[in-house]
Protein backbone atom coordinates (compact mmCIF):
# COMPACT_ATOMS: atom_id res chain seq x y z
CA UNK A 1 0.00 0.00 0.00
CA UNK A 2 1.31 3.49 -0.93
CA UNK A 3 1.25 6.40 1.49
CA UNK A 4 -2.00 8.33 1.03
CA UNK A 5 -0.31 11.65 1.73
CA UNK A 6 2.75 11.68 -0.55
CA UNK A 7 1.78 8.74 -2.74
CA UNK A 8 5.44 7.83 -3.17
CA UNK A 9 6.64 5.69 -0.31
CA UNK A 10 5.07 2.60 1.20
CA UNK A 11 2.62 3.16 4.03
CA UNK A 12 4.09 1.69 7.20
CA UNK A 13 2.06 3.66 9.75
CA UNK A 14 -1.65 3.02 10.15
CA UNK A 15 -3.63 5.51 12.19
CA UNK A 16 -7.19 5.27 13.41
CA UNK A 17 -8.83 8.56 14.21
CA UNK A 18 -12.23 8.84 15.80
CA UNK A 19 -13.91 12.18 15.36
CA UNK A 20 -17.36 12.18 16.91
CA UNK A 21 -18.89 8.92 15.75
CA UNK A 22 -16.92 8.69 12.54
CA UNK A 23 -14.01 6.31 12.42
CA UNK A 24 -11.33 7.24 9.95
CA UNK A 25 -8.34 5.18 8.93
CA UNK A 26 -5.18 6.68 7.53
CA UNK A 27 -2.23 4.93 5.92
CA UNK A 28 1.00 6.87 5.82
CA UNK A 29 4.73 6.49 5.28
CA UNK A 30 6.99 7.21 8.23
CA UNK A 31 7.86 10.75 7.14
CA UNK A 32 4.32 11.89 6.55
CA UNK A 33 3.14 10.22 9.75
CA UNK A 34 5.64 12.20 11.73
CA UNK A 35 4.26 15.52 10.51
CA UNK A 36 0.74 14.35 11.27
CA UNK A 37 1.79 13.11 14.67
CA UNK A 38 3.32 16.41 15.72
CA UNK A 39 0.09 18.11 14.79
CA UNK A 40 -1.81 15.78 16.99
CA UNK A 41 0.46 16.05 20.01
CA UNK A 42 0.47 19.83 19.87
CA UNK A 43 -2.98 20.18 21.36
CA UNK A 44 -3.19 18.62 24.86
CA UNK A 45 -6.20 19.84 26.81
CA UNK A 46 -5.69 22.21 29.77
CA UNK A 47 -6.75 19.51 32.22
CA UNK A 48 -4.10 17.20 30.78
CA UNK A 49 -1.46 19.84 31.27
CA UNK A 50 -2.52 20.30 34.85
CA UNK A 51 -2.59 16.63 35.74
CA UNK A 52 0.77 16.18 34.06
CA UNK A 53 2.18 19.05 36.04
CA UNK A 54 0.83 17.71 39.29
CA UNK A 55 2.08 14.18 38.67
CA UNK A 56 5.49 15.45 37.64
CA UNK A 57 6.20 17.39 40.80
CA UNK A 58 4.77 15.16 43.48
CA UNK A 59 1.51 13.49 44.40
CA UNK A 60 1.45 15.60 47.58
CA UNK A 61 1.21 18.68 45.47
CA UNK A 62 -2.48 18.04 44.96
CA UNK A 63 -3.05 19.71 48.27
CA UNK A 64 -0.68 22.53 47.46
CA UNK A 65 -2.37 23.17 44.16
CA UNK A 66 -5.50 24.23 45.99
CA UNK A 67 -3.72 27.07 47.78
CA UNK A 68 -4.56 30.57 46.60
CA UNK A 69 -2.87 33.69 47.96
CA UNK A 70 -5.50 35.78 49.80
CA UNK A 71 -3.59 38.98 48.99
CA UNK A 72 -2.90 38.80 45.26
CA UNK A 73 -5.20 35.94 44.22
CA UNK A 74 -2.45 33.88 42.58
CA UNK A 75 -2.87 30.11 42.86
CA UNK A 76 0.07 27.81 43.45
CA UNK A 77 -0.62 26.10 40.12
CA UNK A 78 -0.50 29.40 38.25
CA UNK A 79 2.81 30.13 39.90
CA UNK A 80 4.22 26.77 38.84
CA UNK A 81 3.14 27.21 35.24
CA UNK A 82 4.48 30.79 34.87
CA UNK A 83 7.34 30.71 37.36
CA UNK A 84 6.51 34.18 38.68
CA UNK A 85 5.11 35.01 42.09
CA UNK A 86 2.34 37.55 42.52
CA UNK A 87 3.22 39.40 45.70
CA UNK A 88 5.65 39.29 48.66
CA UNK A 89 3.03 37.41 50.69
CA UNK A 90 3.32 34.42 48.30
CA UNK A 91 6.61 33.50 49.93
CA UNK A 92 4.68 32.79 53.14
CA UNK A 93 1.53 31.35 51.55
CA UNK A 94 3.37 28.96 49.18
CA UNK A 95 6.18 28.29 51.62
CA UNK A 96 5.70 24.52 51.62
CA UNK A 97 6.06 24.30 47.86
CA UNK A 98 8.78 26.91 47.63
CA UNK A 99 11.24 25.39 50.08
CA UNK A 100 12.18 22.34 47.93
CA UNK A 101 12.19 24.56 44.84
CA UNK A 102 14.61 27.06 46.41
CA UNK A 103 16.75 24.21 47.68
CA UNK A 104 17.05 22.96 44.09
CA UNK A 105 17.76 26.41 42.63
CA UNK A 106 20.13 27.85 45.19
CA UNK A 107 21.13 24.83 47.32
CA UNK A 108 19.91 26.86 50.26
CA UNK A 109 16.72 28.16 51.85
CA UNK A 110 18.16 30.77 54.19
CA UNK A 111 19.23 34.27 53.18
CA UNK A 112 22.73 35.30 54.16
CA UNK A 113 23.90 38.79 53.39
CA UNK A 114 22.53 42.28 53.31
CA UNK A 115 19.77 43.29 55.70
CA UNK A 116 17.87 46.55 55.23
CA UNK A 117 18.68 48.80 58.18
CA UNK A 118 15.01 49.33 58.94
CA UNK A 119 14.64 45.56 59.47
CA UNK A 120 16.11 46.19 62.92
CA UNK A 121 19.39 45.73 64.76
CA UNK A 122 18.58 42.24 65.99
CA UNK A 123 18.15 40.91 62.48
CA UNK A 124 21.34 42.55 61.30
CA UNK A 125 23.21 40.93 64.17
CA UNK A 126 21.62 37.57 63.46
CA UNK A 127 22.75 37.73 59.86
CA UNK A 128 26.23 38.82 60.78
CA UNK A 129 26.50 35.87 63.13
CA UNK A 130 25.32 33.53 60.41
CA UNK A 131 27.98 34.82 58.03
CA UNK A 132 30.67 34.45 60.68
CA UNK A 133 29.60 30.88 61.37
CA UNK A 134 29.74 30.11 57.66
CA UNK A 135 33.22 31.54 57.49
CA UNK A 136 34.24 29.61 60.59
CA UNK A 137 33.14 26.33 59.01
CA UNK A 138 35.08 27.17 55.88
CA UNK A 139 38.28 27.99 57.71
CA UNK A 140 38.01 24.77 59.70
CA UNK A 141 37.61 22.87 56.43
CA UNK A 142 40.72 24.61 55.13
CA UNK A 143 42.49 23.81 58.43
CA UNK A 144 43.19 27.51 58.91
CA UNK A 145 42.90 27.32 62.70
CA UNK A 146 44.34 30.74 63.36
CA UNK A 147 41.53 32.36 61.36
CA UNK A 148 39.02 29.97 62.95
CA UNK A 149 40.05 31.09 66.44
CA UNK A 150 39.67 34.73 65.42
CA UNK A 151 36.21 34.06 64.06
CA UNK A 152 35.20 32.09 67.14
CA UNK A 153 36.15 35.03 69.37
CA UNK A 154 34.16 37.38 67.17
CA UNK A 155 31.12 35.10 67.36
CA UNK A 156 31.42 34.94 71.18
CA UNK A 157 31.71 38.69 71.32
CA UNK A 158 28.63 39.30 69.17
CA UNK A 159 26.40 36.68 70.73
CA UNK A 160 27.71 37.56 74.20
CA UNK A 161 25.70 40.77 74.08
CA UNK A 162 22.66 38.77 75.04
CA UNK A 163 24.26 37.00 77.99
CA UNK A 164 23.51 38.15 81.51
CA UNK A 165 26.99 37.41 82.82
CA UNK A 166 28.45 40.15 80.67
Amino acid sequence: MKCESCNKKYATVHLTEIVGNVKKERHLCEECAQSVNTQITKVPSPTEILTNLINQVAPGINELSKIVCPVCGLSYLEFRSHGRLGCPMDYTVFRKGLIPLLEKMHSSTQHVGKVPSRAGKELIKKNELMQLRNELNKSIEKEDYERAAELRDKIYELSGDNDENK
Partner: protein
Amino acid sequence: MMKISDLADNTGEWLRGTGPESDIVISSRIRLARNVAKYPFLSRANVKQKKELEELIRTKIKEADVDPTLCYVNLSELSSVDRLFLVERHLISREHAEGEKERGVAFEKSENISVMVNEEDHIRIQVIRSGLELKETWKTIDTIDNKLERKINYAYSSQFGYLTACPTNVGTGMRASVMLHLPALGMTHHIEKVFNAVMKLGLVVRGLYGEGTQVSGDLYQISNQFTLGKSETEIIEIIEGVIPRITSYERMARKALISESKDQLEDRVWRSYGMLKVARMITSEEIMHLLSQVRMGVNLGIINDIEMKTLNELFILTLPGHLQKLEGRELTSSQRNIIRAMYVRKRLEKIETLKG
Protein backbone atom coordinates in the same frame (compact mmCIF):
# COMPACT_ATOMS: atom_id res chain seq x y z
CA MET B 1 14.08 66.51 30.12
CA MET B 2 17.11 65.18 28.34
CA LYS B 3 16.93 63.79 24.85
CA ILE B 4 18.10 60.33 23.91
CA SER B 5 19.89 61.83 20.90
CA ASP B 6 22.19 63.71 23.32
CA LEU B 7 23.66 60.33 24.17
CA ALA B 8 24.31 59.18 20.61
CA ASP B 9 27.58 61.11 20.20
CA ASN B 10 29.42 59.45 23.07
CA THR B 11 29.34 56.18 24.97
CA GLY B 12 29.27 55.09 28.60
CA GLU B 13 32.38 55.25 30.76
CA TRP B 14 32.45 51.47 31.11
CA LEU B 15 33.64 51.15 27.49
CA ARG B 16 36.85 53.08 28.17
CA GLY B 17 38.90 49.91 28.16
CA THR B 18 40.61 50.67 31.48
CA GLY B 19 40.84 48.87 34.82
CA PRO B 20 42.33 45.53 35.86
CA GLU B 21 42.54 42.83 33.16
CA SER B 22 40.89 45.19 30.66
CA ASP B 23 42.62 43.52 27.71
CA ILE B 24 40.20 40.63 28.25
CA VAL B 25 37.63 41.84 30.78
CA ILE B 26 35.47 44.47 29.08
CA SER B 27 33.25 45.30 32.04
CA SER B 28 31.95 44.35 35.48
CA ARG B 29 28.28 44.74 36.23
CA ILE B 30 26.07 44.23 39.28
CA ARG B 31 22.33 44.51 39.49
CA LEU B 32 20.06 44.36 42.50
CA ALA B 33 16.38 43.42 42.35
CA ARG B 34 14.14 45.18 44.88
CA ASN B 35 10.41 45.41 45.44
CA VAL B 36 8.26 47.82 47.38
CA ALA B 37 6.54 46.25 50.40
CA LYS B 38 2.74 46.03 50.46
CA TYR B 39 2.42 46.09 46.67
CA PRO B 40 1.89 43.08 44.38
CA PHE B 41 4.71 42.19 42.01
CA LEU B 42 4.21 43.61 38.53
CA SER B 43 2.59 40.56 36.92
CA ARG B 44 -0.27 40.85 39.44
CA ALA B 45 -0.40 44.65 39.69
CA ASN B 46 -3.28 46.50 38.05
CA VAL B 47 -2.89 49.66 35.96
CA LYS B 48 -3.56 51.91 38.93
CA GLN B 49 -1.00 50.14 41.13
CA LYS B 50 1.61 50.23 38.37
CA LYS B 51 1.06 53.95 38.01
CA GLU B 52 1.32 54.49 41.77
CA LEU B 53 4.50 52.46 41.93
CA GLU B 54 6.10 54.31 39.04
CA GLU B 55 5.28 57.66 40.59
CA LEU B 56 6.40 56.62 44.06
CA ILE B 57 9.71 55.14 42.95
CA ARG B 58 10.45 57.99 40.52
CA THR B 59 9.94 60.55 43.29
CA LYS B 60 11.93 58.56 45.84
CA ILE B 61 14.87 58.11 43.45
CA LYS B 62 14.99 61.89 43.06
CA GLU B 63 14.77 62.44 46.82
CA ALA B 64 17.41 59.80 47.54
CA ASP B 65 20.06 61.98 45.89
CA VAL B 66 21.75 59.10 44.08
CA ASP B 67 23.75 61.26 41.68
CA PRO B 68 23.46 64.96 40.75
CA THR B 69 23.40 64.18 37.01
CA LEU B 70 20.72 61.49 37.33
CA CYS B 71 17.86 61.92 34.88
CA TYR B 72 14.65 59.96 34.44
CA VAL B 73 13.14 58.77 31.18
CA ASN B 74 9.57 57.47 30.89
CA LEU B 75 9.80 54.49 28.54
CA SER B 76 6.16 54.59 27.45
CA GLU B 77 6.90 57.98 25.85
CA LEU B 78 9.83 56.69 23.80
CA SER B 79 9.86 55.30 20.25
CA SER B 80 10.88 51.69 19.72
CA VAL B 81 14.21 52.85 18.19
CA ASP B 82 14.99 54.90 21.30
CA ARG B 83 14.18 51.94 23.52
CA LEU B 84 16.39 49.67 21.42
CA PHE B 85 19.11 52.28 21.73
CA LEU B 86 18.90 52.13 25.54
CA VAL B 87 19.06 48.32 25.45
CA GLU B 88 22.21 48.46 23.33
CA ARG B 89 23.69 50.90 25.84
CA HIS B 90 22.96 48.33 28.61
CA LEU B 91 20.89 50.98 30.39
CA ILE B 92 17.72 48.89 30.24
CA SER B 93 17.03 45.20 29.66
CA ARG B 94 15.32 43.79 26.58
CA GLU B 95 12.32 42.82 28.71
CA HIS B 96 12.07 46.37 29.99
CA ALA B 97 12.14 47.78 26.46
CA GLU B 98 9.35 45.43 25.39
CA GLY B 99 7.27 45.93 28.52
CA GLU B 100 4.11 47.94 28.62
CA LYS B 101 2.49 50.91 30.36
CA GLU B 102 4.05 52.80 33.22
CA ARG B 103 7.75 52.15 33.42
CA GLY B 104 10.97 54.08 33.23
CA VAL B 105 14.66 54.29 33.82
CA ALA B 106 16.92 56.72 35.68
CA PHE B 107 20.58 56.98 34.72
CA GLU B 108 23.42 59.42 35.21
CA LYS B 109 25.66 61.16 32.71
CA SER B 110 28.55 58.71 32.72
CA GLU B 111 26.05 55.83 32.29
CA ASN B 112 27.63 53.83 35.11
CA ILE B 113 24.44 53.79 37.13
CA SER B 114 20.92 52.99 36.02
CA VAL B 115 17.75 52.31 37.97
CA MET B 116 14.95 50.55 36.11
CA VAL B 117 11.45 51.15 37.41
CA ASN B 118 8.70 48.55 36.92
CA GLU B 119 10.78 45.94 35.14
CA GLU B 120 10.17 42.34 36.28
CA ASP B 121 10.70 43.71 39.79
CA HIS B 122 9.63 47.17 40.94
CA ILE B 123 13.22 48.34 41.13
CA ARG B 124 16.35 47.10 39.42
CA ILE B 125 19.52 48.98 40.27
CA GLN B 126 22.51 48.47 38.00
CA VAL B 127 26.12 49.64 38.12
CA ILE B 128 28.68 48.94 35.36
CA ARG B 129 32.40 49.63 35.35
CA SER B 130 35.24 49.10 32.91
CA GLY B 131 37.59 46.15 33.58
CA LEU B 132 37.46 43.63 36.45
CA GLU B 133 36.11 45.85 39.24
CA LEU B 134 33.37 43.86 40.95
CA LYS B 135 34.40 44.92 44.47
CA GLU B 136 34.32 48.62 43.60
CA THR B 137 31.09 48.09 41.70
CA TRP B 138 29.57 46.46 44.78
CA LYS B 139 30.60 49.41 46.97
CA THR B 140 28.87 51.83 44.60
CA ILE B 141 25.67 49.83 44.25
CA ASP B 142 25.53 49.09 48.00
CA THR B 143 25.62 52.84 48.70
CA ILE B 144 22.88 53.56 46.16
CA ASP B 145 20.76 50.74 47.60
CA ASN B 146 21.20 52.17 51.13
CA LYS B 147 20.13 55.61 49.92
CA LEU B 148 16.99 54.22 48.27
CA GLU B 149 16.24 52.00 51.23
CA ARG B 150 16.01 55.05 53.48
CA LYS B 151 13.16 56.32 51.30
CA ILE B 152 11.46 53.08 50.23
CA ASN B 153 10.21 50.22 52.37
CA TYR B 154 11.54 47.11 50.60
CA ALA B 155 9.80 43.74 50.63
CA TYR B 156 12.10 41.64 52.82
CA SER B 157 11.91 38.55 54.99
CA SER B 158 14.49 37.34 57.47
CA GLN B 159 14.46 33.87 55.95
CA PHE B 160 14.27 34.63 52.23
CA GLY B 161 15.97 38.03 52.13
CA TYR B 162 14.90 40.50 49.46
CA LEU B 163 11.68 39.16 47.97
CA THR B 164 11.53 39.10 44.18
CA ALA B 165 8.94 38.27 41.54
CA CYS B 166 10.98 35.29 40.36
CA PRO B 167 12.30 32.90 43.02
CA THR B 168 15.57 32.60 41.04
CA ASN B 169 16.49 36.11 42.26
CA VAL B 170 15.34 35.92 45.87
CA GLY B 171 17.81 36.45 48.73
CA THR B 172 20.44 38.97 47.80
CA GLY B 173 18.52 39.87 44.63
CA MET B 174 21.98 40.28 43.19
CA ARG B 175 23.36 39.26 39.84
CA ALA B 176 27.04 40.05 39.37
CA SER B 177 28.44 39.57 35.90
CA VAL B 178 31.69 40.06 34.08
CA MET B 179 31.93 40.54 30.32
CA LEU B 180 34.89 38.77 28.76
CA HIS B 181 36.45 38.83 25.31
CA LEU B 182 37.73 35.31 24.59
CA PRO B 183 38.63 35.01 20.88
CA ALA B 184 41.59 32.64 21.23
CA LEU B 185 39.70 30.16 23.43
CA GLY B 186 36.92 30.22 20.86
CA MET B 187 39.34 29.68 17.97
CA THR B 188 41.13 26.79 19.65
CA HIS B 189 37.81 25.23 20.80
CA HIS B 190 38.82 25.31 24.46
CA ILE B 191 35.87 27.49 25.39
CA GLU B 192 33.74 24.45 26.32
CA LYS B 193 36.22 23.54 29.02
CA VAL B 194 35.87 27.00 30.52
CA PHE B 195 32.09 26.69 30.52
CA ASN B 196 32.22 23.35 32.30
CA ALA B 197 34.60 24.62 34.96
CA VAL B 198 32.50 27.72 35.50
CA MET B 199 29.25 25.77 35.75
CA LYS B 200 30.69 23.59 38.50
CA LEU B 201 31.03 26.74 40.60
CA GLY B 202 27.34 27.51 40.14
CA LEU B 203 28.01 30.25 37.63
CA VAL B 204 26.44 30.66 34.19
CA VAL B 205 27.74 31.84 30.82
CA ARG B 206 25.59 34.03 28.61
CA GLY B 207 25.87 36.16 25.48
CA LEU B 208 26.36 39.92 25.22
CA TYR B 209 22.82 40.93 26.18
CA GLY B 210 22.21 38.49 29.00
CA GLU B 211 19.71 35.70 29.33
CA GLY B 212 18.88 33.83 26.16
CA THR B 213 21.04 35.93 23.87
CA GLN B 214 23.47 34.46 21.41
CA VAL B 215 27.21 34.73 21.74
CA SER B 216 28.72 37.06 19.17
CA GLY B 217 32.05 38.80 18.79
CA ASP B 218 33.58 36.25 21.21
CA LEU B 219 31.99 38.22 24.04
CA TYR B 220 30.74 36.22 27.04
CA GLN B 221 29.08 37.17 30.30
CA ILE B 222 29.78 35.11 33.38
CA SER B 223 27.42 35.57 36.29
CA ASN B 224 26.12 33.91 39.46
CA GLN B 225 23.09 31.64 39.24
CA PHE B 226 22.33 31.33 42.95
CA THR B 227 21.21 34.34 44.96
CA LEU B 228 20.15 32.68 48.22
CA GLY B 229 22.41 31.28 50.93
CA LYS B 230 25.55 33.23 50.10
CA SER B 231 26.27 36.84 50.96
CA GLU B 232 26.92 39.48 48.31
CA THR B 233 30.64 39.55 49.08
CA GLU B 234 30.87 35.76 49.01
CA ILE B 235 29.25 35.67 45.56
CA ILE B 236 31.61 38.37 44.30
CA GLU B 237 34.61 36.51 45.70
CA ILE B 238 33.60 33.36 43.84
CA ILE B 239 33.39 35.23 40.53
CA GLU B 240 36.51 37.30 41.13
CA GLY B 241 38.33 34.10 41.99
CA VAL B 242 37.55 32.35 38.74
CA ILE B 243 38.04 35.25 36.28
CA PRO B 244 41.86 35.49 36.54
CA ARG B 245 42.04 31.78 35.74
CA ILE B 246 39.98 32.30 32.60
CA THR B 247 41.95 35.35 31.49
CA SER B 248 45.27 33.57 31.94
CA TYR B 249 43.87 30.62 30.02
CA GLU B 250 42.89 32.98 27.20
CA ARG B 251 46.36 34.57 27.23
CA MET B 252 47.93 31.11 27.05
CA ALA B 253 45.74 30.22 24.08
CA ARG B 254 46.80 33.46 22.36
CA LYS B 255 50.47 32.70 23.00
CA ALA B 256 50.02 29.21 21.60
CA LEU B 257 48.40 30.65 18.48
CA ILE B 258 51.35 32.99 17.98
CA SER B 259 53.98 30.32 18.43
CA GLU B 260 52.19 27.72 16.33
CA SER B 261 50.65 29.76 13.54
CA LYS B 262 51.90 33.31 13.71
CA ASP B 263 51.53 34.02 9.99
CA GLN B 264 47.95 32.77 9.84
CA LEU B 265 47.01 34.72 12.95
CA GLU B 266 48.55 37.96 11.67
CA ASP B 267 46.88 37.42 8.33
CA ARG B 268 43.48 37.00 9.98
CA VAL B 269 43.90 40.09 12.10
CA TRP B 270 45.11 42.30 9.23
CA ARG B 271 42.43 41.00 6.86
CA SER B 272 39.77 41.87 9.44
CA TYR B 273 41.25 45.33 9.91
CA GLY B 274 41.41 45.81 6.14
CA MET B 275 37.82 44.68 5.74
CA LEU B 276 36.64 47.25 8.28
CA LYS B 277 38.49 49.98 6.36
CA VAL B 278 37.24 49.15 2.87
CA ALA B 279 33.95 47.23 3.04
CA ARG B 280 30.81 48.95 1.71
CA MET B 281 28.29 46.71 3.46
CA ILE B 282 28.77 44.96 6.80
CA THR B 283 26.15 42.91 8.65
CA SER B 284 25.87 43.18 12.43
CA GLU B 285 27.12 39.64 12.80
CA GLU B 286 30.13 40.21 10.56
CA ILE B 287 31.19 43.39 12.31
CA MET B 288 31.23 41.65 15.67
CA HIS B 289 33.56 39.05 14.25
CA LEU B 290 35.84 41.62 12.56
CA LEU B 291 36.03 43.84 15.64
CA SER B 292 36.80 40.82 17.78
CA GLN B 293 39.75 39.86 15.58
CA VAL B 294 41.10 43.42 15.49
CA ARG B 295 40.66 43.78 19.24
CA MET B 296 42.78 40.69 19.79
CA GLY B 297 45.30 42.05 17.25
CA VAL B 298 45.64 45.24 19.28
CA ASN B 299 46.06 43.24 22.52
CA LEU B 300 48.82 41.20 20.91
CA GLY B 301 50.62 44.26 19.54
CA ILE B 302 50.02 43.25 15.93
CA ILE B 303 48.06 46.46 15.33
CA ASN B 304 49.06 49.55 17.26
CA ASP B 305 47.37 52.54 15.68
CA ILE B 306 43.92 52.07 17.19
CA GLU B 307 42.83 52.61 20.78
CA MET B 308 41.04 49.98 22.85
CA LYS B 309 38.36 52.55 23.69
CA THR B 310 37.59 53.10 19.99
CA LEU B 311 37.21 49.37 19.41
CA ASN B 312 35.07 48.81 22.49
CA GLU B 313 32.86 51.70 21.42
CA LEU B 314 32.48 50.39 17.87
CA PHE B 315 30.96 47.16 19.25
CA ILE B 316 28.09 49.31 20.58
CA LEU B 317 27.96 52.23 18.13
CA THR B 318 27.43 49.96 15.10
CA LEU B 319 24.39 48.18 16.57
CA PRO B 320 21.04 48.65 14.76
CA GLY B 321 19.51 51.06 17.31
CA HIS B 322 22.59 53.26 17.34
CA LEU B 323 22.83 53.47 13.55
CA GLN B 324 19.17 54.44 13.29
CA LYS B 325 19.62 57.05 15.99
CA LEU B 326 22.67 58.38 14.18
CA GLU B 327 20.73 58.69 10.92
CA GLY B 328 17.67 60.00 12.69
CA ARG B 329 15.30 57.61 10.92
CA GLU B 330 14.27 53.97 10.75
CA LEU B 331 16.43 51.83 8.45
CA THR B 332 15.97 48.45 6.81
CA SER B 333 18.66 45.89 7.54
CA SER B 334 20.38 46.33 4.16
CA GLN B 335 20.35 50.12 4.62
CA ARG B 336 21.90 49.56 8.03
CA ASN B 337 24.64 47.41 6.50
CA ILE B 338 25.64 50.30 4.21
CA ILE B 339 25.51 52.95 6.98
CA ARG B 340 27.39 50.61 9.31
CA ALA B 341 30.26 50.17 6.82
CA MET B 342 30.32 53.92 6.13
CA TYR B 343 30.38 54.79 9.82
CA VAL B 344 33.25 52.40 10.59
CA ARG B 345 35.28 53.66 7.61
CA LYS B 346 34.83 57.22 8.84
CA ARG B 347 35.93 56.36 12.37
CA LEU B 348 39.00 54.53 11.12
CA GLU B 349 39.89 57.24 8.55
CA LYS B 350 40.03 59.72 11.39
CA ILE B 351 42.80 57.62 12.90
CA GLU B 352 44.65 57.58 9.57
CA THR B 353 44.52 61.38 9.21
CA LEU B 354 45.58 61.88 12.81
CA LYS B 355 48.67 59.79 12.10
CA GLY B 356 49.48 61.76 8.93
